């Protein structure tokens, strides 16, 4: 991992849109090695000009505008481009209260405060928090965008003892209480998230605070602190703009355990107490935690399958189990081919995969042939594996949804369904024996995470592949636009929310403007049930026509089959664009009889 970044190569990578993942990884490496202002400014001027940049508002009680070049570069590393607007020092409270000051286009509001701006002469911590809660509450009345509040990052100092560390309401206590209060506000007001700035500040420790700068120009964060703060903001906002990757594909030898099982045998590989076995156990715990958070695991390893299996069977120290992996390619094939098979088997796009390997050669091969896969080169020190994997940001997320937690369980349940299918004579009676229950509910606040995920990750059964940001999903919910969540369960378990549909009414017509259904439930006739629901909705509105415009992408042709099967009228608008309509006075879509319940 310590190979120096080749500046010329990185410049070339930055110019190649196909290689942006590689460019981001190399840029990260260079910034970590040379975190100075000059490195950021040098790369800022070489970033490709963005096709679109995300407007972000930064409201701060101190001077922060100097963070702009750091934000520019760090946002690029996190996979997005930023267009920031700043409201600083004296203006910060007004910016929250006056709706006209913050553009409706903004995708998020970052609120950065310092202690002296909140707690003044006669203002106690309690009053300061009550004021802050009031301000954010007011802001929430006029804006639905996510608010990200930074915890106060004034580091306690050894010299604080001069004021009596055990004296109540001194600086250290005030900071702790203010930060606890800010966390509480984030739980009480919808769409408020916390940025843990003290954790970021710890990276640069004592150099975080800009003492002279504070007195000269009210700048709290030093130039050593700015890149770290920019990194924290860029990484958190990225979670609002793109969903996490779904699948982690792992090598085995010198990745899950130390040594090579083909040579050292199952008993000989390093696992368990002591160096380096303990480090591999620690890494496995991280992988297990990712699995529990909804990441699907797969193996891609050059080995004899029985040798690899023997480690899982005979080494009690193993944290990961054989069945924790939803797909296993343990063979002597090219790893690129294995990756393609894994994606096909799990029914996900290659751009949902993260591939980790200790071998630079394997990593280079995959990067070259499949640049859409996020490749993480683990290096040679197993104690850094988890850090290197997580630093890729591929699995970053703001929250873990119920569906995330259920995902791996559902892969196991799927095999039970398959055995029922095999033992049942025909598909229709299999569907009836599943006891399918479908619900279609108006979307509500708690569903925002999951709907955002579905709308952005679904490539196959997706009407128009229109992607929307987390902020836009929240907006639809708050404004009570007709966005619905589709949930499914059967006798084997609960699938959770598996789809979303969005309707829009005009004078004569109800239009389906968004429709996405998870590939896990395709073939269960959910598609037809949703169209039946849309017909019902149109009738309830007294409308005579239901319509939808299908925009064809690389993998969503099955949308056409369903509309044709339900006898919609089809008009070609262009090569990739078809309009479907149904005259409800003469036609209808009926509920498939395999569902027991249907409600909304």
């Amino acid at each position: 991992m310590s190979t120096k970044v080749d500046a010329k190569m990185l410049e070339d990578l930055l110019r190649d849109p196909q290689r942006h993942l590689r460019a981001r990884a190399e840029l990260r490496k260079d910034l970590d090695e040379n975190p100075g202002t000059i490195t950021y400014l040098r790369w800022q001027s070489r970033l490709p000009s963005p096709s679109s940049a995300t407007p972000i508002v930064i409201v701060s009680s101190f001077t922060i505008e100097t963070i702009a070049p750091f934000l520019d570069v760090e946002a690029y590393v996190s996979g997005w481009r930023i267009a920031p607007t700043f409201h600083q020092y004296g203006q910060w409270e007004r910016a929250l209260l006056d709706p006209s000051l913050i553009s409706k286009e903004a995708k998020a509001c970052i609120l950065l405060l310092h202690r002296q701006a909140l707690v003044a002469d006669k203002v106690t911590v309690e009053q300061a928090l009550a004021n802050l809660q009031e301000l954010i509450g007011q802001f929430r009345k006029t804006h639905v965008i996510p608010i990200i509040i930074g915890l106060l990052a004034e580091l306690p100092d050894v010299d604080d003892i001069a004021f009596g560390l055990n004296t109540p309401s001194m600086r250290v206590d005030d900071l702790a209480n203010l930060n606890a209060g800010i966390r509480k506000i984030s739980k009480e007001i919808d769409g408020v998230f916390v940025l843990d700035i003290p954790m970021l500040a710890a990276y640069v420790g004592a150099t975080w605070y800009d003492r002279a700068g504070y007195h000269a120009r009210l700048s709290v964060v030093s130039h050593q602190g700015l890149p770290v703060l920019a990194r924290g903001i860029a990484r958190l906002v990225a979670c609002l703009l793109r969903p996490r990757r779904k699948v982690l594909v792992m090598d085995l030898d010198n990745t899950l355990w130390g040594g090579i099982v083909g040579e050292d045998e199952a008993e000989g590989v390093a696992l368990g107490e002591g160096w380096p076995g303990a480090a591999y156990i620690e890494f496995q715990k991280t992988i297990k935690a990712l699995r529990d958070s909804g990441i699907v695991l797969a193996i891609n390893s050059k080995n004899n399958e029985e040798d690899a299996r023997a480690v899982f069977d005979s080494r009690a120290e193993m944290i990961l189990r054989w069945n924790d992996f939803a797909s296993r390619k343990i063979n002597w094939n090219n790893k690129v081919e294995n990756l393609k098979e894994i994606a096909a088997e799990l029914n996900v796009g290659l751009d949902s995969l993260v591939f980790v390997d200790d071998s630079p050669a394997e990593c280079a091969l995959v990067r070259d042939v499949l640049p859409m896969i996020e490749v993480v080169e683990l290096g040679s020190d197993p104690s850094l594996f988890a850090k290197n994997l997580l630093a890729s940001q591929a699995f970053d997320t703001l929250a873990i949804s119920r569906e995330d937690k259920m995902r791996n369980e559902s892969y196991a349940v799927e095999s039970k369904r398959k055995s029922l299918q095999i033992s049942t004579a025909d598909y229709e009676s299999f569907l009836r024996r599943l006891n399918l229950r479908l619900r279609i509910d108006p979307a509500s606040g708690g569903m925002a995470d999951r709907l955002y995920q579905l709308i952005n990750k679904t490539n196959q059964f997706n009407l128009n592949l229109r992607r929307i940001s987390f902020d836009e999903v929240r907006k639809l919910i708050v404004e009570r636009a007709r966005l619905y969540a589709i949930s499914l369960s059967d006798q084997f378990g609960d699938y959770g929310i598996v789809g979303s549909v969005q309707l829009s009414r005009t004078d004569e017509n109800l239009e389906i403007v968004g429709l996405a259904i998870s590939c896990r439930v395709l073939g269960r006739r959910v598609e037809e049930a949703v169209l039946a629901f849309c017909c019902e909705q149109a009738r309830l509105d007294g409308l005579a026509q239901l319509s939808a415009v299908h925009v064809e992408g690389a993998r969503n042709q099955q949308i056409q089959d369903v509309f044709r099967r339900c006898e919609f009228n089809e008009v070609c608008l262009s090569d990739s664009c078809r309009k479907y309509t149904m005259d409800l006075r003469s036609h209808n879509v009926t509920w498939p009889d395999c569902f027991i319940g249907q409600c909304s």
Partner: protein
Amino acid sequence: MMKRDEINMSLREVFSIVLNIPADSIKPDLSPDNCSNWDSLRHVHLVTAISDAFRIHLSIEQQLELMSFQSAVDIVAKAMRHNG
């Protein structure tokens, strides 16, 4: 100890990157008055980039004095003499 010529060369690179202008366009009298990229924000970056590049600390007074390329050379030469 760094010679004035070397300081001049290194500073030219720093100014060129921070202000995003070609190094050979930098004249001794380059200042916020004749360089539109040299605004108050870039001034802060110039100060930190110079501090990093020469491993020196610039006082607030020195930061305020640094108002032309020539003054930067003088300030750095003086600061390095103190350090040396």
